């Protein structure tokens, strides 16, 4: 258990992805069939299952990747593997607590943090344990940190801070002033997403540098410029979420200026990296490579969208529509999920005999991305339709808006089902590969020896 707990994080993450994608299909049905499943699990309980599961997928898989890379690839002696196991156990218990919170309707009811508020305590404890393990492992053992070590460290620290900040509402000082509360709430959410992006983007830079076998990729000045730009955005660039909320104008001025600087360096890094890869690199890491290149395309598409949405006059019309959902789906599925699939593929490649790595199927990859593209475009179309409808029918009924959106909803649901199937086609084989590696204590010792041997062979390569 102590030895392979990082793989259990990945396994847990993949299960949460499938649960979250399935819950997403269920809630999409409600747009066409309002009574769908209402008597068993109404929308207000089903939707948080979807959002929380997807957040868990990102956080668990990114964290598991960090543990794995430190201990298995970098060959660093983890400060306290038992703390890592405790971190894992706490999160599994929290997962049960969150599900119970939703099913029993005991909710905190804050967007993205819908579960019973006290569950935030063990969640924070898990992050603190992760932080202790991370910094104590690296401190004094690695000099001149490459950028991914900075990104992971910053991601952990800021995650602790912003998860705490998201709960400031429990204090009357914040809660009694609705606009202050709303401002701090969305400030924390913007930075919370920025924090997990630090973990995820750190992961992609790590995997890229390992595929290319060139750590200088992660020590370049441009790379660090991107990192500081991302960090500046994490700290100060959140207010495009609340352009239309009556906050002080200077908050929005700052956010507008900073948002415009976003993302561009990241594309440049990936672009430069892909050009310099040899054919051998691409072949031996085919699945990881494909997913990273897919994330590159999704970065580009979402970059265009994010830049437009950060212009206040366009934000005025896109805010409160499905265009914002398209942006969040494009980033969480198109970018984060592709990167995390790349990370899991890379780790699996370390656990798989070399001759089998080349046999990865292309169809699930293309099916997943094609269905995501249709899904994403359908959401944008829904958003544009709503923006036009709201501004041309100021006194219109919400029911009329839904009635006029039927064709978009239908395409959105069909694409959502296809996307779910695509995710399953990719995630289930990963789960099937990881389970034997995760549960070696239940298997004969020979299997663990085989895993150790494969890791040794790959590290020598």
């Amino acid at each position: 258990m102590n030895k392979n707990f990082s793989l259990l994080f990945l396994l847990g993450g993949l299960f949460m992805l499938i649960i979250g994608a399935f819950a997403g299909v269920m809630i999409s049905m409600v747009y066409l069939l309002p009574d769908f499943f209402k008597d068993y699990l109404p929308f207000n309980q089903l939707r948080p299952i979807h959002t929380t599961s997807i957040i868990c997928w990102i956080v668990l898989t990114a964290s598991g990747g960090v543990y794995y890379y430190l201990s298995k690839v970098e060959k660093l002696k983890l400060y306290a593997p038992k703390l890592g196991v405790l971190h894992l156990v706490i999160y599994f218990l929290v997962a049960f607590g969150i599900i119970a919170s939703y099913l029993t309707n005991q909710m905190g009811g804050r967007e993205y943090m819908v579960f019973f508020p006290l569950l935030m305590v063990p969640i924070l404890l898990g992050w603190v344990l992760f932080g202790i393990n991370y910094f104590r492992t690296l401190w004094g053992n690695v000099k001149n940190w490459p950028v991914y070590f900075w990104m992971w460290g910053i991601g952990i620290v800021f995650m602790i801070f912003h998860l705490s900040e998201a709960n400031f509402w429990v204090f009357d000082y914040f809660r009694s002033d609705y606009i202050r509360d709303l401002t701090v709430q969305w400030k924390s959410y913007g930075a919370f997403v920025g924090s997990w992006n630090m973990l995820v983007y750190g992961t992609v830079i790590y995997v890229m540098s390992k595929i290319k076998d060139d750590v200088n990729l992660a020590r370049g000045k441009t790379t660090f410029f991107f990192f500081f730009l991302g960090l500046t955005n994490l700290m100060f660039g959140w207010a495009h979420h609340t352009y239309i909320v009556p906050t002080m104008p200077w908050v929005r001025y700052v956010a507008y200026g900073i948002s415009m600087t976003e993302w561009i360096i990241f594309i440049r890094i990936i672009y430069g990296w892909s050009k310099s890869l040899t054919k051998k690199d691409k072949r031996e890491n085919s699945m990881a490579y494909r997913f990273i290149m897919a994330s590159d395309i999704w970065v580009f598409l979402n970059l265009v969208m994010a830049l437009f949405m950060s212009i206040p006059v366009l934000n005025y019309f896109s805010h409160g529509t499905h265009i914002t959902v398209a942006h969040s789906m494009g980033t969480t599925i198109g970018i984060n999920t592709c990167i995390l699939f790349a990370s899991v593929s890379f780790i699996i490649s370390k656990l798989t005999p070399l001759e089998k790595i080349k046999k990865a199927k292309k169809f699930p990859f293309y099916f997943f991305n094609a269905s995501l593209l249709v899904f994403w475009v359908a959401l944008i179309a829904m958003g544009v339709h709503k923006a036009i409808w709201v501004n041309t029918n100021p006194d219109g009924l919400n029911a009329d808006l839904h009635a006029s959106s039927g064709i978009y909803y239908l395409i959105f649901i069909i694409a959502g089902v296809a996307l779910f199937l695509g995710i399953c086609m990719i995630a289930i084989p990963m789960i099937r590969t990881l389970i034997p590696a995760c549960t070696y204590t239940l298997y004969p010792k020979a299997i663990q020896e085989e895993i150790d041997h494969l890791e040794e062979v790959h590290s020598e390569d």
Partner: protein
Amino acid sequence: MKGTYLALFMIDPPSKQNRIVITVLVILFAIYNVIIYTQDSASSAPIMTPSAMAGEKLWQNNNCTSCHQLYGLGGYLGPDLTNVISNPNKGPGYVAAFVNSGVKSMPKFEFTANETDQIVQFLTHVDQTGFYPNKGATFSNDGWVDIEYK
């Protein structure tokens, strides 16, 4: 590159330079946070009454935000309720009648009369803080939007 912002962290040794940049950013961030937490709201609304706060708690406990938006923030299944109270076609009576209706995708809640009143108080408070959609907003050529405050 010399003399630019970029050049600030392009001096060797990179590790030391990185620490300096992060320290500066963290200090700025700390100052920024203090201002955000302590500045007065641009809204002229009074602070929430205990009854409105109780209504907000009901709003949260039942995860109303999964379907409804306030200031366009929340789920998109139900309508935005920022100004539902001051809407001449809706208002407090409409809200009170609607919360227990259970129509269409809305769950069948069983709020007491007191709880219903608390939810109305909460939405009344939100309504006092501003406009959404902000129909009085004005647009500038540089892409900026000046919103109308209450």
